[in-house]
């Protein structure tokens, strides 16, 4: 998680980024999964698929994966590395780390509120 730790704490742009992520629409899921996977280090397409399957129990189909990779790359949130054996790894950029951090923070706030209300009103811890 070294890349994520490079984010600027208390950045004034955080709410804006979180709002932008909320508007990510149907690409929010794959993009978040890819960024979260790349936060652990560079990976190529197949390694991304397997890693995401292992930690999220979601298998990204090839077309969906590369559609999201192309968009993330175009936005400067990930970058390609040198290709090896017909496989090109991608790594997170610092902008991508910030965007992921802001998005996960927003998701955590929602999760915290939801869990607190469940515990208070439904007795579900």
């Amino acid at each position, binding site marked *: 998680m070294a890349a994520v730790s490079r984010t600027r704490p208390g950045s004034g742009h955080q709410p804006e980024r979180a709002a932008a992520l909320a508007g990510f629409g149907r690409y929010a899921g794959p993009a978040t999964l890819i960024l979260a996977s790349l936060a652990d280090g560079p990976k190529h397409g197949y390694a991304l698929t397997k890693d995401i399957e292992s930690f999220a129990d979601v298998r990204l189909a090839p*077309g969906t994966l590369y559609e999201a990779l192309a*968009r993330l790359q175009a936005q400067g949130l990930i970058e390609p590395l040198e290709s090896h054996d017909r496989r090109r790894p991608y790594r997170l950029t610092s902008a991508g780390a910030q965007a992921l951090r*802001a998005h996960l923070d927003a998701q955590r706030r929602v999760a915290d509120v939801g869990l607190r209300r469940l515990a208070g009103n439904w007795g579900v811890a």
Partner: protein
Amino acid sequence: MRPPEAAARRAGTLLRWYPKAWRSRYGEEFAELLICDISERPRSWARTADVVRGGIVARLAAAGLCGCTLEARDQARASLGSLACCVAIFLGFGVAMWSQLTIGWQWSEPDTAATTVATVAMSAAMLVFALLALAAAVPVLWSVASRVARGRPRGLLAPSVLFLAGAAVLFVGGRHFGNGWPGTGGHPWARQGLVPGGVAAFSWASTLAVSSYWAHPAALAAFPPAELAWMMGSPLAVALVIGGAAMAVRRAELSPRVLDFETRLSTAACAAMAVFLAGCCAWIVDGGPGPRNLFHAGAIDVAGAVVMTIALAGARQAARLARQAVRGPGSSDACRGGSHARPGGSHARPGGTGSLPGGGDEER
């Protein structure tokens, strides 16, 4: 055939759904991923459907009609080129209907207020289209001419030749067949029209291919051979004009100021299309069954209105994406930072606006 070879072959087949530029960038690594996936799951309709959908999205993105995977200026040019195609398709059907109404008006005024208002609205929109086309063409032609003058016509020769050839065929053929039928305004007593008779005649002749006679082969067979040949050949000329114009827009090195100007025109063009379509729909609703001569609306007009609606939707999407690309980073969540993040370009943008793509679509 050994399993790995079969997987590679199937991966190659699936890869063909993607456009050439995408394949040259991602093809090798994507094929490798597909081979691994096929090896794990030899049969998967979901994978095939996903790849097909991804290929279509990639083609739409390359045409500037969705997503923001192109560099800002490329995005603007691609979107403007696609917008030109959408407007041309819209006008292909629109002009056919409009010329029918204006030719009808040469003989007698419309018999209902709704058709009268609709025809006037469509004519006003056509005038706006003509002015917008002129305003849009001048900077593009200037850019093309200055490149040719500087001795750098590479890439522009083919679109210029295609455009000029198509336009010449349309002009000559349109004039020839427009003058060949008295009902198109050439008749001496046809002087009561809303627009000049020659304009109506030319519009009618250049869109002669948009005809319900295609569904009636027996009637079609009674047409003069030259007219039949024109009905079959003129769509090709229109395609040459559209293709040439779109290619020229994509390849011309338009300055940011010109791109900004063109995108403003594109917004105005969408508004004119909406007005035209509204008039067209009003006429179709008003001009249903019954002997109303040329003011009668038939099934082909309904089909044309459907095509025009789809073309308007495409044009609006292209205009919106072109506008977002021209405004540049920071003005749009959908394309923010696109120009900073190309392969081999600058990498991390510390402190930059790290939004994920796609925001603009949902926020509107």
